């Protein structure tokens, strides 16, 4: 019998082929896509941003590893999702954010924000944003202390607030900012300038990353480029960012038309704050967003509109984080209200 030598044959379940993507591969590529943005941040803000990003990434990975082990489970850091959370958390914090507070952010993002729900795939809210929302509510002063980009000596000198002692306040930054101020860069972000001082900034330089802000939210062109890479590799859904950005642009435009002096133009809306970063990398967190195709559009547009509403009407200068968290909270409802119509359905399928 020349042919059949194998005596043990495996019974497997169909399908016997599998597509090219896997979760760890997707996550790994998301990390790759975030690295250029992180690098830009280090270029803008120097050693403080670099240490902050490394610190939050390591912090999240370590928290996940230790928590898994304490629970007697296998560590799940190999799927790279903790690294993404850490990077994103770091990118949304001001570059000079005290490191001890960042550590608390990591702890909150991973432990209650993710593992308490059952780990990867179970978090109802984006863990990085849970961590950041916690920090925003806990340390409202420190998290709005922005520092100018391209400061002299940024590569060898820390922003003084970075190294605040644990549990202690950071020193006021005003003197330091005055000392390092570069032409055109004050500590305030364009959104804060607009909201509280009615100073309008030109949106295009912002798109190229020339402004103050959270450590990773400024290089608009880079964010779109890196997001585009993930979309092309089918590792990210393009509908949510497109929906969110157009929702923000259109609603921002409506506000602008109603009162051009009080509300900024749509380009300003798009290029300022964390909108691009949030829409591209955080709103698209698949775990916390709807799965139905129509639902994704609804979800995206909703978050875009909420961002503009919070920015224009609320007490906060920036609304992306809250808009995404609210979107996360609404996504089960959206999923429920937008079920796909099954092929050949005899009657409209399940409303509420």
């Amino acid at each position, binding site marked *: 019998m020349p042919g059949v030598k194998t005596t043990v044959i495996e019974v497997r379940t169909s399908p016997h082929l599998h597509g090219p993507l896997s979760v760890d591969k997707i996550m790994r590529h998301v990390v790759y896509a975030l690295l250029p943005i992180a690098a830009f941040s280090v270029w803008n803000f120097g050693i403080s941003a670099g240490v902050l990003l490394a610190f939050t990434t390591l912090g999240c990975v370590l928290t996940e590893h230790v928590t898994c082990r304490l*629970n007697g489970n296998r560590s799940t850091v190999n799927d790279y999702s903790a690294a993404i959370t850490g990077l994103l958390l770091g990118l949304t914090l001001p570059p000079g954010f005290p490191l001890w507070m960042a550590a608390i952010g990591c702890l909150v993002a991973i432990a*209650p*924000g993710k*593992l*308490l*729900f*059952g*780990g990867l*795939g*179970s978090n*109802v*809210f984006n863990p990085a944003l*849970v961590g950041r*929302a*916690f920090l*925003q*509510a806990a340390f409202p002063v420190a998290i709005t202390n922005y520092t100018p980009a391209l400061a002299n000596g940024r590569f060898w000198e820390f922003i003084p607030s970075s190294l605040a002692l644990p549990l202690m306040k950071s020193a006021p930054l005003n003197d330091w900012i005055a000392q390092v101020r570069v032409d055109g860069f004050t500590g305030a972000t364009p959104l804060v300038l607009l*909201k509280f001082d009615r100073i309008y900034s030109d949106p295009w330089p912002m798109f190229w990353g020339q402004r103050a802000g959270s450590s990773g939210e400024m290089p608009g062109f880079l964010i779109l480029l890196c997001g585009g890479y993930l979309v092309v590799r089918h590792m990210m859904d393009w509908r949510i960012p497109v929906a969110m950005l157009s929702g923000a642009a259109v609603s921002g435009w409506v506000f602008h038309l109603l009162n051009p002096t009080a509300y900024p133009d749509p380009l300003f809306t798009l290029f300022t704050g964390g909108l691009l970063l949030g829409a591209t990398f955080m709103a698209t967190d698949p775990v916390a967003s709807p799965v139905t195709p129509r639902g994704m559009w609804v979800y995206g547009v909703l978050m875009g509109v*909420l961002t503009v*509403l*919070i920015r224009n*009407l*609320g*007490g*906060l200068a920036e*609304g992306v*984080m*809250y*808009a995404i*968290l*609210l979107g*996360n*909270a*609404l996504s*089960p*409802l959206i999923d*429920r209200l937008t079920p796909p119509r099954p092929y050949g359905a005899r009657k409209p399928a399940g409303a*509420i």
Partner: protein
Amino acid sequence: MNESLGHIFVDSLLINNFVLAVFLGMCPFLGLSSKFQTAWRMGVTVIFVITVSSILAFGTNLMLVALHAEYLRLISFIVIIAATVQLTEMIIKKASPALFRELGIYLPLITTNCAVLAVALFQTVRNYNFIQSTVYAVSASGGFCLAIVLLSLVRERVELSDVPSLARGTALTLVLASILSMAFMGFAGMGGGG
């Protein structure tokens, strides 16, 4: 206080959401939010009961003030609420026995939902006029409904994943409520003229 109706509405629906910011109606919020269907029905019933009892309480308060018997306010509000719940129960029973079967068990619970009494008390303390009171009642109870529906859907979702045994139950619900509450902080200042 002359607040515009829009302010009252946005404020009590979102900014000072009864559940997530003022901690009213916590017991049903935590206890009856595990299923969407239950939560949704509870929410709608609460909207109804609060609105009716708010209107009744407004009238009663006028009467009490006229009689200089303000010290009976609390006790009479309680009676009104209990009566409203009874009334609701009877109306639903007559109008739709099917709905009654579904809601029956939740109705008596509404009597001890502090949100109901709180609306009656707050509208009195804040000197709202009749229309303000009604808008306030609708939006505050709407806020309750919104919060409990959101929590129930999120909880149904969490039910599909492998929650560690440690966190199962109320602790997890509280963490979810906390995150929802943080998310709602985004609305802060929306009513204000910044």
